């Protein structure tokens, strides 16, 4: 493996067995390498396997076959405890539906990501406030998610994803629920954060304006990265 490769997927397959007996290959024998610090975007139609791919890379799901090597470690072979540690320390997730805990304030949502760490309470709160400030939400620290706009909620989600200083940011349709202006703003925040911290970003999206921020654009169809794709954006 090259020195600067942070994500390497070898013959990665994820198959779902339906009750009808049918098999769905959400990710099908997929090979991909992503260098450290790259902002890589995957575009594909709904059901092409993009979210499944992110879940496999982020350790939320286990592959049926193949390997997911992240930062030199095959996460498909990790036990439960090491997988949790990997999710906590190596990756940050941003979801289309924000996935904030509705009963917690903006600050508490970020603190929740820091809770399992050994950080002292005061340090944790200060870190959460710094992150909220960095995404422009200094005045919204005590607001519940339902008191925030969609763009603000996504900014909280980004701040939460950055909380543990992960090496990889996984963005699953981060602008899917936002208008273009807000979506661009969110992508800009992610782009800046990744360039400042040297984080690798893997985003899956439908939004055409991602081209402005991405280093590499990939196309996914039927669980595979297409070598000669038809660009669904243009």
């Amino acid at each position, binding site marked *: 493996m090259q020195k600067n490769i942070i994500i390497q997927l070898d013959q990665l397959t994820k198959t779902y067995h339906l009750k009808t007996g049918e098999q769905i290959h959400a990710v099908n024998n997929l090979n991909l390498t992503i260098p450290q610090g790259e902002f890589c975007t995957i575009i594909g139609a709904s059901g092409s396997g993009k979210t499944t791919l992110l879940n496999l890379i982020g350790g*939320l*799901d286990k592959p049926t076959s193949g390997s997911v090597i992240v930062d030199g470690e095959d996460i498909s072979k990790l036990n439960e405890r090491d997988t949790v540690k990997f*999710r*906590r*320390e190596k990756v940050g997730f941003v979801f289309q539906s924000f*996935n904030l*805990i509705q009963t917690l304030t903006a600050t508490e949502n970020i603190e*929740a990501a820091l809770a399992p760490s050994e950080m002292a309470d005061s340090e944790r709160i200060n870190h959460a406030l710094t992150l909220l400030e960095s995404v422009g939400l200094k005045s919204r620290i005590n607001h*519940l998610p339902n008191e925030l706009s969609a763009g603000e909620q996504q900014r909280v989600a980004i701040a939460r994803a950055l909380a543990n200083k992960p090496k990889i940011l996984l963005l699953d349709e981060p602008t899917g629920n936002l208008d273009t202006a807000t979506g661009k703003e969110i992508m800009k925040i992610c782009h800046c954060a990744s360039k400042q911290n040297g984080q690798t970003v893997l985003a899956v999206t439908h939004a055409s304006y991602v081209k402005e921020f991405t280093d590499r654009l990939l196309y996914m169809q039927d669980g595979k990265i297409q070598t000669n794709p038809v660009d669904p954006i243009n």
Partner: protein
Amino acid sequence: MRRRKHRTIVNVIGFIIVVATLVTLVSTARAWDTSTSQPLKQIGTDLILIYSAPVVPSGTGCFIANHLFSFPFEQSSMTEIQQVEGIKNAVPILMHRMGAVVFVGFDPEEKETNAILPNNIVEGRYLTSEDTNAAIVDYEYAKLNNLTIGSPINYIKGKFQIVGLANIDAANILKSHIYVNLPAGQNALPENNTGLVNVALISVYDPRDVPKVSQELIDKWAGATPIAATDLAASTSNVLKINEQTAWNISIIVAVVTVLFTIRTQVSTVSERTHEIGILKAIGWSKSNIVNQIFIESAIQTGVGGLIGCIIGVGLTWYLLGSMSGVTIADPLILAAGFLLALISGIVASAYPAWKAAKLSPTEALRAI
């Protein structure tokens, strides 16, 4: 938790009900036991034996026991009474009333079971078997009649000198005004009462044998009336008549119902929080973090519920028993037991939902709405 007010309040109320029920029932039952046994415990006995009599004309006074008129019987029958299986000791007492004054003859050598015991003396001394004209007088009675140590005191034919003042608890069923040696007491009465008494204080080896012993006394001595603690309490107390074992049983049933109810609400809570658990797993929470979180929330709910339940339980007990003397309203052991029961109920009730939550796959949980 504070923003899931409805569920939290429902759970806390459940624990309040358990603990308040337990504290109230057990405290009341224990007070009931105390109140029923207190009158006899005061004189170190398990039951008294008398021969009930109809109302006797008061011209020459009458034999009484705990306000019941009674016939005198031979003091020598104590030996036979003591031979009844289960009886440890039988102590003779002569108790007589003339007008408003109650007079007792007793054997001062009996220092465990008696109408008056050495620890009742607050001034002067207790009697010895050699005292033929010495008397102990109730402290309040002496104060009311300006009697002191050395004062003379008469009862019908008897002339005595006060050697001691005693503080006798109102709960003592043989509480009297004047106490003298048994032979002196027998001689003080108008007729010849030598060798006669009208009360036998009976102590048994095992208090559980009281009903059996009572029945045997009735069988052997026709007309004998054994009076046990429960007989006295049935007519003197209006507190909730329930024994401690029943109270515990009811409390445990309430606790089981509450545990089942809480399991149901906790399972619902966890189901409602499936998506949230998925998020927490996605951001790096482990199974143990999730389980701990659910246990901590449950512990806080049970803690708050237990505390409020204890307070309400003490309040209810005070309301029911406030007027009774000699009972403990807030027994730390009962409060601790109530609190512990709530805590255990909480742990049991949250164990299954916690386990269910912990084994959720993050992707499945995230898909839940």
